[in-house]
């Protein structure tokens, strides 16, 4: 039936998104292509039928004039064709909707990843994304960075990092344990510290948030 494949895509993406909250699922290139093929097929068929009725009604746009066609055509054959065109057009619209839903759900998740994992995505996620999605991610990154730099510029304030201060602070400084080798980290005061596995450090909470999200460190005390 028309639109079945595209509905599959939508159901898939929903399942994948609830199954994995912090990554992008693989892009279903095959699925998308099949839907686009089906759309082309529907469209070609419509063109054919339309040309057949077309001799009676000289219009270009299929959809807008269908009602006219349905009412004005006297022969039952033409009426049947018009109904077919109408049905196929609805299927086309539905396929378009489903594809857009599929792609924009992925896009939403890709934007979320900027907030979960920071501006550089792990390879696992990158491999699941298309070329254009990667490009979108990079651009989103820039747009977001520009925005955060813009906050309060009029009031002589130079930007606000919205990815910091994710949680209400309970204490200013926290002790944290390093979970994996990370290397050098530069806190705001400029004194570089080296994060080695199992080391314990003491830093202001808000400066640790990115590291926590990346799974590099773990808070010991509040």
């Amino acid at each position, binding site marked *: 039936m028309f639109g079945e494949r595209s509905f599959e895509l939508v159901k898939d993406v929903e399942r994948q998104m609830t199954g994995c909250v912090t990554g992008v699922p693989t892009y279903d290139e095959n699925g998308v292509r099949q839907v686009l093929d089906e759309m082309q097929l529907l469209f070609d068929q419509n063109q054919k039928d339309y040309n057949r009725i077309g001799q009676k009604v000289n219009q270009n746009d299929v959809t807008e004039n269908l009602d006219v066609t349905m009412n004005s055509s006297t022969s039952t054959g033409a009426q049947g064709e018009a109904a077919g065109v109408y049905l196929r*057009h609805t299927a086309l619209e539905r396929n378009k909707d489903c594809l857009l839903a599929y792609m924009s759900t992925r896009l939403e998740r890709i934007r979320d990843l900027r907030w*979960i994992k920071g501006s550089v995505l792990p390879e696992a996620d990158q491999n699941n994304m298309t070329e*254009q999605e990667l490009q979108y991610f990079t651009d989103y990154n820039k747009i977001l960075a520009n925005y955060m730099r813009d906050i309060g510029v009029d009031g002589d304030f130079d930007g606000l990092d919205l990815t910091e201060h994710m949680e209400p602070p309970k204490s200013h400084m926290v002790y944290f344990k390093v979970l994996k080798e990370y290397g050098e980290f530069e806190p705001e005061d400029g004194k570089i510290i080296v994060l080695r596995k199992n080391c314990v450090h003491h830093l202001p909470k808000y400066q640790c948030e990115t590291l926590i*999200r990346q799974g590099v460190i773990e808070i010991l005390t509040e």
Partner: protein
Amino acid sequence: MDISLNGGDDQGGPVDNEEDDDDDEPIVVTSAEVLQRLEHGWMNEKMSPELLPPLEQEKDAMLGQIKVMERNVTTLDKRDVRTDIHKLELERIKFVVVSYMRTRFFKVQRMSFTLYEAEMKRSRNQESILFKEEFTFLKNLVTRTADYFKATLISKMPPVLQKFEIKKFRVLPQFDAFVFFRVLQNQTVQVEVNDEILTIELEEGDLHFMRYEPIAHLLAGGAIHLSTLKANPPSRHHHHPHAANDDDKVNALKIREEQGALSSPQKISHHPQWLRKLEGTGGECPHLI
């Protein structure tokens, strides 16, 4: 625990807040008052399903204040116990501002096309619902996203369907969402329940739980403010005994900083669960399906 941030009374000095009042004179308010307005605005923003008018002056004033405080805090003696407390307080204030901006950010992002459409249709004498920088962001995001869809999908479709229809990207606020709110001025409100119209008396100080739509205009008029179930009942607070006009009355209702205002309505826990918890209308995080 009211800590004056700059260590003395003088640095919390008055901030000029040019607000168009009836008498057209700038009102001078203290930074504590500004913070309080921002806190209320922040709670409202967090709990309401739609984007609320921006608190332009409050935000700018508070950012300026943060800058001053950040400077002051570096001059304090590091061995002094109070230094850490000052820093923590500064962190809390920053959290409120950042969280306010972030809450708005995610609403703007989620409803980007809807807001962009509205912004394009807005007449010149209508106030924008966005901060200036938010609008720039919105414009960039909408353009980039539309380009993405055109390049990846729409151009590959049959000719009749090669239109970018903004209506397919419309996301409307959930006006049906239920919210908690505290009544600041006596009101009556008409609510439709099962095809019946009920008139409900709202008395000052009451806490109610209701659909957002019928009370949205009260929020805009400042007769109520949205809250969490936990937020403490209003109490007159001590910073400014000269509370006279209606604006001050709003300020006079203080959510105690220790619990109410600074613990966010939806508690965030560590990655990755915090993502899931923050779904919903007022959520302040990436929105999941």
